[in-house]
């Protein structure tokens, strides 16, 4: 069930109402039941897979209180990674495994191994790993309540694509949910509305304006269009995921359980380090705490001199490569992670040479320029994120080659557009329209970002008439865009 469907909202509303009507002792079982029902709308088999994974992690967590912690921890990590590899990457090994089995005389066509990846498994895997690590290091006690632990895996608002929650904090919120109030209701609905606007209004529309063959055959298009569409893709990706997170945080908040913030206006970041504190925050924090810091600590033991180049090179590169691999076991994802690793290394080298300055200390103009520079680099890195490395290179060539920028033609089209837009739309429309389409959705997105830059709920400070006008315009825009066939699943659900 898509979380932007009217059916989801209708079911969620009924579910939440029933939740608060139930006696407190029945609320957690109710949450688990509802979460399983939600999961079953994708596939009932996923319930079983998650049951096994959750049960094993529950058991391992309890065992971590006893001896041989290290062994159990590694067994748990390998188990979780193994499950992820088994389901997520079966396309890689299924043909070879089939061939091997048939050599043994066991008939197993690749169809028999045509497994469906359980939704949200990548997110779940790293949550369970962090739970085991935290328990083994004594940061949190092992969770004994099987119901609470099961909800850590199944809780439906965070099931599909996070946010990635830390076990200790999440267990606490489950046990002591916030009481319903008018203020909580308003804020939750505000999160849902902004999330819906980001997903349905901005992300779906930006995705729809990208040609179907853009990411297969970018060589067909001139440089200016490639640039405009890359901008559109960058904002589509961001609004898609940020929109999803807003909706699920809003729904969860209505149940009294706050989920972590995942985005804080990332495209306004003035350096790459800041970008990763604003983009997919729950994953970035996880990577920082479970890859970057352990790696740095390990290196410090081996190379105590802090200025040793390995401290500058290895932790960011390794962290970003792991991030890439988490998104997908492919060369292009590795490239995406590697590129971001290099950005971070470069930034560290520059800060070593020029001295570290917080982004907010820079002059205003330089802050804007830095943000634009960071955005351009991040947008270029989305190329291998979206397409295979060869095609990404083609895209980059088309984007940067001066021969692919027929500016003289553009002047003609622009003149035609200004002078005679009514009479010869076939000459200017394919050139000008993508720019207008992109601007129509990127600019409102930037306005929204500006609004939420300091306060996620700034909208709630407005006077009621202004809130009303905004909601009315939003509803009208949604109504008109709903007439377009642009429905698309959440991009991050694929991970």
């Amino acid at each position, binding site marked *: 069930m898509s979380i932007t469907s009217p059916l989801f909202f209708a079911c969620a509303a009924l579910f939440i109402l029933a939740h608060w009507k139930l006696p407190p002792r029945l609320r957690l079982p109710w949450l688990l039941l509802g979460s399983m029902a939600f999961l079953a709308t994708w596939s009932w088999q996923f319930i079983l897979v998650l049951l096994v994974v959750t049960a094993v992690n529950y058991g391992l967590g309890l065992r971590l209180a006893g001896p041989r912690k290290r062994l159990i921890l590694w067994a748990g990590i390998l188990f979780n990674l193994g499950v992820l590899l088994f389901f997520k990457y079966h396309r890689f090994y299924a043909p070879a495994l089939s061939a091997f089995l048939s050599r043994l005389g066991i008939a197993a066509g690749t169809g028999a191994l045509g497994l469906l990846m359980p939704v949200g498994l990548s997110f779940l895997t790293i949550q369970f790993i962090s739970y085991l690590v935290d328990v083994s290091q004594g940061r949190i006690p092992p969770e004994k309540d099987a119901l609470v632990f099961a909800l850590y895996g199944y809780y439906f608002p965070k099931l599909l694509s996070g946010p990635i929650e830390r076990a200790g904090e999440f267990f606490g919120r489950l046990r002591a949910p916030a009481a319903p109030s008018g203020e909580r209701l308003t804020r939750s609905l505000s999160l849902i509305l902004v999330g819906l606007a980001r997903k349905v209004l901005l992300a779906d529309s930006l995705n729809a304006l990208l040609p179907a063959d853009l990411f297969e055959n970018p060589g067909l298009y001139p440089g200016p269009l490639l640039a405009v569409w890359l901008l559109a893709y960058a904002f589509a990706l961001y609004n898609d995921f940020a929109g999803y997170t807003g909706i699920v945080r809003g729904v969860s908040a209505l149940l009294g359980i706050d989920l972590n913030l995942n985005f804080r206006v990332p495209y306004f970041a003035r350096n790459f380090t800041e970008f990763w504190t604003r983009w997919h925050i729950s994953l970035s924090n996880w990577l920082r705490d479970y890859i970057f810091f352990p790696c740095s600590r390990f290196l410090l033991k081996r190379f105590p001199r802090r200025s040793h180049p390995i401290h500058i090179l290895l932790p960011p590169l390794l962290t970003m490569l792991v991030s890439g691999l988490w998104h997908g076991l492919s060369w292009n994802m590795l490239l995406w992670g590697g590129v971001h690793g290099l950005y971070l290394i470069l930034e560290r080298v520059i800060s070593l040479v020029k001295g570290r300055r917080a982004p907010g200390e820079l002059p205003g103009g330089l802050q804007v320029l830095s943000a634009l520079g960071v955005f351009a680099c991040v947008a270029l890195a989305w190329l291998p994120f979206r397409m295979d490395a060869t095609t990404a290179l083609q895209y980059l060539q088309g984007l940067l080659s001066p021969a692919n920028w027929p500016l003289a033609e553009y002047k003609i089209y622009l003149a035609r557009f200004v002078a005679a837009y009514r009479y010869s739309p076939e000459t200017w429309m394919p050139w000008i329209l993508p720019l207008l389409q992109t601007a129509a959705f990127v600019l409102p997105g930037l306005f929204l970002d500006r609004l939420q830059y300091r306060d996620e709920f700034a909208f709630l400070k407005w006077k009621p008439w202004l809130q*009303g006008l905004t909601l*009315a315009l939003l509803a009208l825009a949604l109504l008109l865009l709903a007439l377009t066939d642009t429905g698309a699943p959440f991009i991050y659900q694929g991970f």
Partner: protein
Amino acid sequence: MTSTSSPKRPLHSLFFAILFFLALAGGLEGAARSSWAAGHLPRYRSFGNDHYQFEIKWFGLERYVARHGGVDVLILGNSMANTGVDPDVITALYAEQTGRPVGVYNFGVEGLTLHGNLALAALLLEEYQPEVLVFVADVRDLDDANLPNSEARLLSDPWVRYRLGEWTLAGWLFDHSQALQVYLPYRNWVRADFPDTFYNYLYRAVTITESGYEPDTNTITLDEAALNEIRNSAACTQYYPQIEIGAGRLEELRALLALANRHGARLIVAEMPVNPVVYECMTGAVNRADFQQAMTETLAPGGGIFLPAEPGLPVEAHIDMHHLNRQGAAAFSRQLGLALLGLYTPSR
């Protein structure tokens, strides 16, 4: 959920939202209905149906009726009728032979069979009360298995369903809101393929004549090699030999006749003069004579008339298996007009 902001009264915001929404929607609707809009807004309108050729015809007929005070003869059928019948030829023939004007409009819609035309006829008879319905048909119209996707999509459209008596909110809105009708032709403006599809729409909106005829722009001449290609095509070797005259379609033909009779209109079914090669393809259970017999036997008891295609249209009049070129359309229209002259005198 920490924030420094404090929410204002949410019910007030909701009240304002509803108020502003109604004001905005009302303002846009008022603007679309104003005399200014008539002169300044684009003339293209839509009900949100993705079969835009159907919509071009619908609004074309609306304009035709506004200009001529009504329509006497409606031509129904599929793309063969669309490109095969020029109502102006029939009108000129009537003027020449009787000195009386007759209003003829071609409502041939691509991809529609008898099944879809039955639904369409209900809409058109209700709306325009023509005196004659001419349904241009071929053997495929009687094949129960012939269910094109385009027809299914057209019939499941909210506006069409609404006009056929099934209430849908979207259908009601599209039917009553002038502002939406002005916006809907551009509803896919966010899509990458919008320029292409929109030019196609504009091109056809301009090419289709005032009386609904869409002349075929092909200049193909079917030589022997092309005819052999048709003879070897899957349509000829696989589809036509398997065609059967379905009881369901014959029932729909009776329903169409009853519908026309109820509205006081006469139903004439004209056989489409398809490429003669098609008859060579009918090697299965059904041949042309079976089709003609089924038509006559079904229509005659209810007062309907079947007009078999006259011989005389050469292969060169066709562009493919089924469609006529301009010359072919002119010839077929004349044949049809002459037959109509003997069957119908306008009452206006």
